[in-house]
């Protein structure tokens, strides 16, 4: 079956997904899952530069949200949203080069993981300071509005990160200026070792939206249809000039904070409970029930995904580190 590099989607007011779209989403979710598994494997082999992060359990949120965007929309993802990078059109090779610190990576080895910008795809990757991208996303939304681009800007933050001042300043600005911004609060229950009960007194993160006079909605982040529909509606609102939306997408961080974190502080029964809601398993069940997927097709997708990953890994491993003296280049733009 043909898998296009950059997904083309119908521009429609009706958020219902077609079979073709469902299969594309499934492909991206599988790709995300296997990509991160391969990153962990490479990490254990000592081939990853620095740390390794996964969004295991977050695939429906990352993929479903980005799937609601048009090509001219802007994406400001966080570190557990690799699926969003892929949906927006980023190649596996480039993501692998970033993780392996190669000179031909999009950042030229200046930063790792998803910390790069790809203006052709309108992907502006995060920096390590949580919340720091939100004001920048608001700036891109402001530019979109001033230039009458009809583009929306999607950005993300975690349950812990949503407490940072940058997020609140962003919502204050975006709400009163009616900027075309979507903020997805990925509530995966833990901020490193701190459980969400220690991060907020409010019942739901989406309740904070009321304070800014904008809509806030809490959804099941493992339900691909809920994620896509909610994000599509938020994008439609933003495009119509109605301003920002806060979407709280509830999932579970199935792995540790990073590859070196054993996460012993997470109650085992919580992991077991959330395993039953694995987004990959959920979408497979959904698509089998809709007669869009068969076990044979599932195996084909698995094979195809592994083949693409093997290519990307080999390509990155064969690429070289940047020349040392290049370190001084590019502090200033011409």
């Amino acid at each position: 079956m043909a898998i296009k590099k950059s997904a083309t989607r119908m521009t429609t007011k009706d958020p219902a997904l077609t079979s073709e779209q469902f299969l594309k989403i499934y492909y991206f979710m599988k790709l995300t899952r296997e990509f991160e598994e391969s990153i962990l494997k490479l990490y254990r082999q000592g081939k990853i530069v620095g740390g390794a992060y996964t969004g295991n359990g977050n695939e429906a949120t990352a993929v479903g949200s980005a799937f609601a965007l048009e090509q001219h929309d802007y994406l400001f993802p966080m570190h557990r949203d690799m699926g969003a990078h892929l949906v927006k059109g980023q190649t596996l090779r480039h993501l692998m080069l970033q993780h392996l610190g190669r000179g031909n990576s999009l950042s030229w080895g200046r930063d790792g993981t998803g910390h790069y910008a790809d203006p052709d795809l309108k992907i502006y990757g995060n920096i390590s300071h949580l919340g720091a991208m939100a004001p920048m996303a608001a700036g891109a939304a402001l530019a979109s509005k001033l230039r009458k681009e009809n583009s929306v800007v999607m950005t993300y933050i975690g349950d812990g990160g949503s407490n940072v001042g940058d997020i609140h300043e962003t919502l204050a600005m975006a709400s009163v200026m009616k900027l075309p911004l979507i903020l997805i609060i990925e509530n995966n229950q833990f901020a490193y070792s701190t459980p969400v009960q220690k991060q907020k007194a409010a019942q739901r993160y989406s309740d904070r939206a009321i304070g800014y006079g904008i809509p806030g909605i809490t959804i099941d982040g493992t339900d691909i249809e809920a994620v896509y529909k909610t994000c599509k509606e938020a994008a439609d609102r933003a495009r119509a000039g109605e301003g920002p939306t806060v979407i709280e997408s509830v999932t579970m961080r199935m792995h540790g904070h990073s590859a070196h974190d054993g996460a012993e502080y997470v109650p085992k029964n919580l992991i077991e409970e959330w395993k039953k809601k694995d987004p990959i398993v959920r979408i497979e069940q959904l698509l089998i029930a809709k007669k869009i997927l068969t076990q044979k097709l599932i195996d084909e997708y698995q094979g195809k995904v592994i083949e693409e990953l093997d290519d990307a890994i080999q390509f990155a491993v064969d690429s070289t580190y940047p020349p040392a003296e290049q370190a001084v280049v590019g502090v200033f733009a011409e």
Partner: protein
Amino acid sequence: MERDSSVFLLGEDIGEFGGAFKVTKGFLKHFGPDRVIDTVLAETAIVGAATGAAVVGMRPVAEIQFSDFVTTCFSQLVNNTASISYRWHLPCPMVVRLPSGAGIHGGPFHSRNPEAWFFHQPGFKIVAPSTPYDAKGLIKAAVRDNNPVLYFEHKRLYRHIKAEVPDSEYVIEIGKGDIKREGSDISVITYGSMVHTALEAAEILQTKNNVSVEVVDLRSLMPLDTDLIYASVRKTGKVLIAHEDNITGGIGGEIAALISDHCFQSLDAPIKRIGAIDTPTPFSPTLEEYFLPNTNKVTAVLQELAAF
């Protein structure tokens, strides 16, 4: 702003009110609310939004109402803005205007000269004009530069000095200083409000002591016009570095180290520095007077140097 529609202003009270110091008075009426934006009171949002807009192709000019408040968006500036070019290989064409400086009974939170913090962060260009002529040339250069430029406006100079500014189009290259007074015995390396203090002291040295003092106005702090600095020091052999910022950790220390490294053979005296004493800016007039460098203090150091 007439030339380039991608240039727009954002900041607190800059539109309807014309700005806390009336710098942008009349702009809203002339350019409209899409070019002159009154923002929420949230510096991280202002500077972060400017960075985001710059990265996607606009040319924002953000105002931080008092330079003292730049600390509240420090993280955005040093972690995002400054390293966009280095990490992303994209231009980040934005200007941050910062009314700065003391001598107006502002106390600890309305008197800062924070340039040293940003001097230390690779990725910023920094300018500090001392005259209306330089202010025009440098703001044009700052807006046209494809990098983040911090533009420090000494607020005491807003009303304190007046001068003719040509209507013609001219741009002052960032990284180029200016000799404000030629001299042969001592070089004063300075910028901002201290340029005027240095000129007053230079006049006293000439008339009272028959000592010829050269006043080098850096205009740009990053990049520094090291060619101009070294040429002056090699000519005079004695140097005083003067800034209003606190002496310890002010950029004068870096300039002194550069001079020592590059002009050692030419030096006839130790490199001297003068700045504010190492305290937060005090409020009561007698305390602030003691705190700040002024013409008398600069004159005294120059006379010492002349006698060395």
